[in-house]
């Protein structure tokens, strides 16, 4: 899987950046799986915007984003759905769980889409991240930390070539972060996938091949 970014700049950030101030905005670069990329981005530099653009949630940008040589913006809704179901997975900063579903149902709705991961495995992951006892709790009743761990597991329940992460551990303590990062790495390696993590500060959650500043 290859990600190509050309002269990308979100329209709301057009005034703020020029080609010298960022490694990504208004640059041309190519990221190929299984590369591990860390994007260091202080607050307000458009970290979430970047993840949303790469994932096809936002279209308000100039420049180009190409996944496997295919222009993302030119993809049909069905094409984007296929990309999201089988090629690119994401851990949103704001978790985006279904509040009215239980923790387990939140995983199940994703798991049943591709059946890549078995129920037993998903259940084990919950135990591993310490939320095994929250299976039947409604997502809206979980703490942020629990919600974050749940959304991490959800992102791993599909086949993928690239995993996008937007401050995936912001609500977790060090211990839980390392457990979650270990699980992520395990699954990423199993998938022979690349990862792209955007966060505020430098970190060593993963053995990055490249660090870019936004």
């Amino acid at each position, binding site marked *: 899987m290859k990600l190509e970014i050309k002269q990308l700049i979100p329209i709301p950030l057009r005034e703020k950046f020029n080609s010298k101030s960022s490694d990504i905005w208004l640059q041309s670069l190519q990221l190929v799986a299984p590369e591990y990329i860390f994007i260091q981005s202080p607050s307000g530099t458009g970290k979430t915007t970047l993840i949303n653009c790469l994932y096809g949630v936002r279209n308000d940008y100039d420049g180009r984003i190409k996944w496997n040589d295919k222009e993302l913006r030119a993809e049909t809704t069905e094409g984007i759905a296929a990309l999201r179901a089988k090629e690119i997975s994401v851990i949103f900063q704001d978790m985006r769980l279904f509040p009215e579903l239980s923790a387990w149902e939140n995983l199940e709705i994703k798991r*049943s889409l591709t059946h890549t991961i078995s129920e037993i495995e998903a259940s084990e992951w919950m135990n591993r991240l310490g939320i095994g006892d929250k299976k039947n709790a409604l997502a809206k009743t979980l703490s942020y930390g629990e919600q974050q761990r749940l959304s991490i597991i959800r992102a791993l329940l599909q086949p993928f070539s690239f995993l996008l992460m937007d401050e995936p551990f912001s609500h977790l303590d060090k211990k839980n972060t390392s457990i979650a990062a270990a699980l992520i790495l395990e699954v990423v390696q199993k998938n022979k996938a690349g990862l792209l993590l955007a966060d505020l500060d430098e970190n060593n959650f993963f053995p990055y091949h490249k660090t870019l500043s936004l």
Partner: protein
Amino acid sequence: MSQSQGNLLQKLLLRRSKNGRLASAWIALCIGCTLLLISVLMWSVFQELLNGKNKQQDSLGSTFLTISKMVDDASMANKQLTQIDAADVALIKKAPQVQDIGLLSPANFKVSASLGSGPMSFYTLLFLEAAPDRFMDQMPKTWKWQEGDQTIPIILSRDFLNMYNYIFAPSQRLPLLSEQTVKAIGFTLTMGEGEQQTNYRAQVEGFSDRISSVLVPQSFIDYGNRKFGQSNSTNISRVIIKVGDPSDQQFTNFLKQHKYTTNAEQLRFSKMRTIVEVVSLATGILALLIMAIGTLVFILFIELTMAQAQTSVQLLLQIGYSPKKLSRFLVVKYIPIMLSALCVALCITLALNYFASQQLEQLQLHISPFPGFYLWLAASFSGLILLWQISLAIRKAIKA
């Protein structure tokens, strides 16, 4: 789609959908469909009645007229002028509104009827006529005669009996006669003159409202004309025609132009067709309108449900659900509901059609108890339109 996935989607997308609201939308759609189908049924029933496929059948849309040539000063002197020949028949056949034509063959021999002997005896000179069977409004089972038969069935104009009972009998102090009595009395018909004279028994088998005459089977007239006839040719001076709309100006002009005469009152009689057409058109438009409203209510219900589930839809799309999959899930949920409304509407219409056919039978109007092609066409067509509209609404709601 697995069952658990279906259940989860149901929970996310349709949880907020109120059953009461769904029921109202269903009822609106069902009423719309029912009215539409009923109006199509009405239209096709009227068409069937107006253009009665079965020519022998009496139908609302056609009237039988007896026409002959006008007797004027010229024809008083020359009887030939009032006779109807092959050219006239061909002409009338092509006239506007004329659906069928039949010759009324008169007996060209002397006939007399007599009953009993002594002071209560009765004797009258008579005329006989025959009409093709397809023009008869009364066809008793005994309506046949073949050479050698001694009894001749007769159908009498009901007008004649009425004239006797209401005008003639009171003035002559004669007893009134019911139809049953007349049917029960047999009388003697005497044909021909001199050596040829033969007596037959005659029996009134029915009364006609359509043809003012004394009718006997065609086979008897043909036989009688051959045997007792005064001339070889049968002189026809009256024909019976079946017309669609006798009040049609073109038809009345035709009659006037060619100096044909008929019972003028009948010409004014039937504006029925026009009225029926206007009524069914108006009902049709109204039904279409209500159907459109019913469909709109149903679609608005779906849109409302989808609008309430918009956050879930967006999130489902973000975690990799395809719009097609979500549409399919909703279509599978809503189409059976839509189809059930259409089926109930169809059942109501079928029941109504059956009931109407039973009721109309009592009025001697025959319609098929099972509706024809047009109703099925309308049902399938509205089904397809609904399917299309609902799928479209769902697809739009998901992409919104």
